[in-house]
C-alpha cells in the first residue's frame, strides 16, 4: 500500500499514532495562524475599510458572511472526499475526520445564514426570502443535521461510519440537485458572486485584501477545529478500548 520511500503519503496517517504525532504540532500552528489571520482580516475589514457608497457600513458584514459560506460548502466537500476515502480504503482517521467536520460545517452554515439575515434586514427589508442561495443553504443545513443525527444515532462505530458515508455520497448528489432546483424555481434577490477568478474585478482591492485574509483565516479555523475534533474522536475511541479491556480483566 505505502512504500517506505514516500513517508509523507496520506495513507501513512491512517495509522492513528502517526496522525496524533503529526497533529500534535500541526494543531497549535494552524490554531495560532487561524487566530492571527482571522483577527487581521476581520479588524481590517471592520474598522479600516471605507463605507460603501450605497450600503454604508452594513457592507462590512461580508467579511464574516463570505468566508463562513465558503467554508460551509468546503466542509461538505471535505466530508465527501473523506467519506469516499473511508469507503474505498477503510482509512479510519478519514471517517473520524468526516465526523469531526460536520459540526464545524453546520456552524459555518448557521453563521452564513445569520449574517445574511442581519445584512438583509436593512438592505433588502426582510430577514428571510426564499431566494435560491438562501434556500440551498437552508437545505445544506438540513443535510448537516441529518448527517450529525445519523452519526449519533448508531452505536457501532464502523456501522455508523459506513452509513454516514453512504448518506454523504447520496446527499451530495441531492444537495447539488436541490441547488439547481432552487435556481430553476425562482430568480431571487441575492447578488451574484462578488469574487471571481475571471479577470474583470467587481470589488475594489481595499475590500478584497482583508476579505481574502479572512477567507484564509476561516479555512485555517476549519482545519484547526477539524484536527482538534479528530484528535478528540481518536482519544474517545482509545478510552472506550481501555474501558473495555479493564472490564475484561476485572
Amino acid at each position, binding site marked *: 500500500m505505502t512504500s517506505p520511500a514516500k513517508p509523507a503519503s496520506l495513507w501513512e496517517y491512517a495509522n492513528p499514532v502517526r496522525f496524533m504525532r503529526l497533529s500534535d504540532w500541526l494543531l497549535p500552528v494552524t490554531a495560532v495562524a487561524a487566530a492571527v489571520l482571522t483577527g487581521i482580516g476581520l479588524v481590517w475589514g471592520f474598522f479600516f475599510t471605507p463605507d460603501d457608497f450605497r450600503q454604508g457600513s452594513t457592507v462590512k458584514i461580508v467579511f464574516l458572511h463570505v468566508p463562513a459560506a465558503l467554508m460551509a460548502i468546503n466542509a461538505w466537500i471535505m466530508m465527501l472526499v473523506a467519506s469516499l476515502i473511508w469507503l474505498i480504503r477503510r482509512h479510519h482517521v478519514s471517517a473520524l475526520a468526516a465526523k469531526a467536520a460536520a459540526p464545524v460545517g453546520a456552524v459555518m452554515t448557521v453563521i452564513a445564514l445569520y449574517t445574511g439575515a442581519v445584512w438583509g434586514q436593512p438592505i433588502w427589508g426582510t430577514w428571510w426570502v426564499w431566494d435560491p442561495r438562501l434556500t440551498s443553504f437552508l*437545505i445544506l443545513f*438540513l*443535510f448537516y*443535521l*441529518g448527517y450529525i*443525527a*445519523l452519526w449519533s*444515532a*448508531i452505536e457501532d462505530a464502523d*456501522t455508523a461510519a*459506513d*452509513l454516514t458515508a*453512504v*448518506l454523504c*455520497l*447520496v*446527499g451530495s448528489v*441531492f*444537495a447539488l*440537485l*436541490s441547488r*439547481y*432546483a*432552487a435556481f*430553476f*424555481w425562482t430568480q431571487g434577490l441575492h447578488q451574484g458572486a462578488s469574487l471571481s477568478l475571471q479577470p474583470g474585478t467587481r470589488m475594489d482591492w481595499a475590500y478584497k485584501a482583508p476579505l481574502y485574509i479572512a477567507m484564509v483565516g476561516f479555512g485555517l479555523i476549519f482545519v484547526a477545529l477539524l484536527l482538534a475534533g479528530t484528535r478528540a474522536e481518536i482519544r474517545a475511541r482509545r478510552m472506550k478500548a481501555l474501558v473495555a479491556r479493564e472490564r475484561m480483566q476485572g
Partner: protein
Amino acid sequence: MNAILIRDLRLAFRAGGGFGLGLGFFLILAVLVPLGVGPAPQVLAVIAPGILWVGALLACLLSLDRIFALDHEDGSLDLLATAPVPLEGVVAVKALAHWLVTGLPLVLAAPVLGVLLNLPAPAYGWLVLSLLLGTPALSVIGAFGAALTVGLKRGGLLMSLLVLPLYVPTLVFGAEVVTRGAAGLSIATPLALLAGITAGSAALLPFAAALALRINLR
C-alpha cells in the same frame, strides 16, 4: 421477485397493513387547509398545486418506515438478504410495492382533492401526470432512507430528517409542473427534470439502499 411483490402487497392490504394511512392523511390535509387558510377561491387556486404536492410527499413519508422495519423485526429481512435474489432487486421491488400501496392511490385521489382546493381546470392533467412521474422517486428515495435507519429503535424521526432534504428537488419540480400547468405556461422543462430524477433514483438508489441494508445487517 414476483413473490416478494405479491407478499408485500398482500401484507399491506390486510387489516393493520397501513394501506389507507397515506391516503387518509392526504385527505385530512386537503380538508384542513381550506379550513385554516379560509375559503377564498382565488387564494386556494394559487396554493393548491403546492399543497397537493406537499400533501402527497408527507403522506409518502408517513408510511416509509414500514418498508423494511417490520421485515427487520421478524427476521425475514435477513432471509431476503441471504436469498439467491440480489438485494438490490429486493429493494427495488419493495419500493415498487410501497408505491403501489401509497403513491398510486394518491395519484388517483389527487384530482378529487384538487376540486376541494379549487385547482384551476387546466392543471388537473398535469397534476396527475406529475404525481405519476414523481411519486415513484419519493418511494425509492424513501426506501433508501428506510434502509439507512432500519436497525434503529426510534428511527422514524431521524428518517424524516434524512429523507426530507432528499425530497426537495422532486417537490420543487413536481409542484412547478402543476403551477405552470395551472397558469397555462410551458411545462416541458420541469416535467423532463422530474422524470429524470425519478429515472435516476430508480436506477441508482436501490444500489445505495442495498449497500446500507448490508451494512445494517452485518
